[in-house]
């Protein structure tokens, strides 16, 4: 009987402990992410690094950024499990990559691709004072003609 009680109480205690430490960690991670996205105009959370992306979707975002010659800070979620989960909670978005412009979550790979195709990305970058290389190229073409 005694052992039965112990068995049923122990997991409860254990769970509570886990939950409370998780809350603590969540707060710290959230603060860290907050700092990262607010201190940089453009931030990409991705798998791998821009020179060696470890996921096709992350690679697609890197290629888009490269085309527009956007300076950005990248974070490899594979090297930090807290950030990997934390970023999903932070933006309430279930997948990686995630792009932030001016501290605001903009979207993942699908949305970046569509914004790139529609020209919206050029406009969004303009708002934060980044001139897309595609825009520069277009202008110089016009001048030449």
């Amino acid at each position, binding site marked *: 009987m005694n052992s039965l009680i112990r068995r049923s109480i122990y997991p409860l205690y254990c769970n509570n402990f886990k939950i409370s430490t998780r809350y603590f960690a969540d707060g710290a991670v959230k603060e860290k992410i907050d700092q990262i996205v607010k201190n940089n105009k453009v931030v990409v959370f991705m*798998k791998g690094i821009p020179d060696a992306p470890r*996921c*096709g979707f992350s690679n697609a975002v890197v290629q888009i950024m490269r085309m527009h010659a956007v300076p950005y800070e990248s974070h490899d979620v594979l090297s930090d499990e807290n950030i990997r989960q934390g970023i999903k909670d932070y933006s309430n978005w279930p*997948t990686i990559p995630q792009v932030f412009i001016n501290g605001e979550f*903009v979207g993942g790979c699908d949305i970046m691709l569509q914004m790139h195709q529609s020209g919206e990305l050029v406009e969004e970058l303009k708002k934060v004072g980044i001139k897309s290389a595609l825009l520069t190229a277009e202008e110089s073409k016009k001048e030449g003609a």
Partner: protein
Amino acid sequence: MSLSFQHGRLISDLVTRKMTSLGGVVANAIKTKLETALQTKHLEVINESYMHNVPKGAETHFKVVVVSDKFDGLPLIKRHRLVNDILQEELRSGVHALSIVAKTPQQWDVSDKVIESSPNCRGGFGK
């Protein structure tokens, strides 16, 4: 000869189409949920797991093409959030990648209706 060749191809096309439309448990759950919640006018649930480093028959990577009136007036990010919310259970329990094409019936009608497959895997899954 060319006729029988075409016939053979037609059959194999039909067979593969049937196989993909049969889908797995997760694919069917995704399909039902999106159909019910968004009253979709057109819906494709494509299992792209085979492109990734996962066991055969796995249901981890999906692309969904969703055409619904409910997207009317919603910006892209809100459409995606809507789909993510409807599928939050799946996303929490094993669906690892979800690529979304979300259009209104009007947008779908004028589009070329060609759905490109997702970028190739680069080995980051589960590592």
